[in-house]
């Protein structure tokens, strides 16, 4: 196993229209590490993460995941990663059990393995009782927990999490934190983007703070506090990014449904 399970070198993304979302980012994530990616809105965190899983095309730079070049071996990499996105994408016409089963099949797992994973994961996220209900009936917290379970069905080596506790109540957040700690303790590498300083402080071994498309500082929580002479992570964040509100931009990645009407 390579020491660095994620290697990113001089990664850039310029969207059509000229918005430079990511301006030459270089970092590594070690195998088994809980790595946090922080930054204000519009800093380029989600774009970076989406490039790491190949959902956004990079403009330039290198991405190596588990020793494989993403440009060449994307299909192999997909089998080794799980991704719980900011937007919880669920098939609302399916039940949780049906979705887990489908995903297990599409990750080419055996029926026995799928069945044991389904039981294990539903128990982990405390959704056994609603496993046969349609996911459209789930509350926000249940949907978030189920999405986490779905991203774990194939026991990925690396778990990407984009704002996994966004919109959750404190109880649900604590529950998710507990699951993530457990997964990481069992050897899974976790790459997390979050807005919450307490979340980053509680979970992450090492952090990078991003602002205006670049990494502005990187290290363990202890290293960052010392380096920036700060009392807590929020102070580090404010010192390095200048504000707790980033320069948010229109999502140029989304289609414009009215462009034709405007001619």
């Amino acid at each position, binding site marked *: 196993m390579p020491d660095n399970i994620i290697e990113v070198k001089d990664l850039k993304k310029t969207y059509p229209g000229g918005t430079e979302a990511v301006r030459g980012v270089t970092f590594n994530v070690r195998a088994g590490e809980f790595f946090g990616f922080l930054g204000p809105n519009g800093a380029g965190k989600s774009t970076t993460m989406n490039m790491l899983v190949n959902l956004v095309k990079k403009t330039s730079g290198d991405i190596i995941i588990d020793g494989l070049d993403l440009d060449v071996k994307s299909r192999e990499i997909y*089998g080794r990663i799980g*991704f719980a996105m900011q937007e919880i994408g669920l098939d609302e016409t399916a039940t949780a059990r049906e979705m887990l089963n489908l995903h297990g099949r599409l990750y080419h797992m055996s029926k026995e393995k799928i069945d044991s994973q389904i039981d294990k994961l539903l128990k982990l996220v405390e959704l056994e009782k609603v496993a046969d209900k349609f996911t459209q009936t789930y509350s926000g917290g249940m949907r978030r927990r189920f999405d986490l379970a779905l991203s774990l069905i194939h026991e990925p080596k690396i778990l990407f999490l984009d704002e996994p506790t966004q919109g959750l109540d404190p109880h649900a957040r604590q529950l998710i934190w507990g699951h993530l700690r457990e997964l990481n303790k069992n050897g899974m590498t976790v790459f997390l983007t979050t807005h919450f300083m307490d979340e980053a402080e509680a979970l992450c071994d090492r952090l990078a703070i991003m602002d205006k498309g670049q990494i502005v500082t990187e290290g363990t929580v202890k290293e960052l506090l010392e380096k920036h002479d700060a009392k807590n992570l929020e102070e580090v964040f404010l010192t390095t990014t200048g504000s707790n509100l980033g320069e948010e931009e229109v999502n140029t990645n989304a289609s414009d449904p009215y462009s034709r009407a405007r001619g």
Partner: protein
Amino acid sequence: MSIFLSDWYYLSIRSIKQIWRPLLALIPSLFIPIFFFLVNSASLSAFSNVKGFPKVPYRDFIAPVALFTAVFFSCGNAGIELAQDISNGYFKKLLIMPISRLTIILGRLTEVAVQAVMQGMIVMVLLLLVGVRIRTGVAGALAIFVILIVFAMGWSCLSMITALRTQNMRLVQSMFVIVFPFLYITTSQAPLNLLPSPFRQMASVNPVTYIIEGVRALVLTADWGSAAIWQGFLVACAFFVIMVSLTLASFNKTLK
């Protein structure tokens, strides 16, 4: 079973389940073709007395249109469901799975085929009950389904391409009505020789004309050597291949 076939199978099962969820959504797509057939066959039956019209009952002449419409009402769901997957983010999950993107398209097309068979069978039985005769027999009935379903799968790619390119649900839904000009500027109501000149020319370049004429030849003649039948097959297959290729190319456009 190879991985490709296995992925296709499981994605098809997922899509087919969506046909029944909700079941009530199936009712309009069955009602409308039957409604048009009954109204047209009753109100336009005198057309068959016009000079130059084939010497067959008018209801037999327009039976292919009822079958075509029944099968075509299965086309819209593939694009709508794909647009739903895209808008709620589920599509991204599929994109980062170790599966071929072609299986995502084929899974949706299998749903179209299954729904088309179900709806087409119901309308076919109804047509037989009201006295329509399929001169090429059971084999002809099967051939009718092949032509219509292959073409319907190709047509459903249009809504999938719209979903992939625009990611806009309303636009995808509105794409469905495009079938009507294509259906009416054909020989659906009268033979080509009875259409006025501009319509005749437009109908001649409309692929739907060849589908209707192919099915009509299977219903009205017992002649398997009829050029219309083979033209129908060829147009359906060519259209299918072109549209699936365009859909696959559109996948790349979803990644910015």
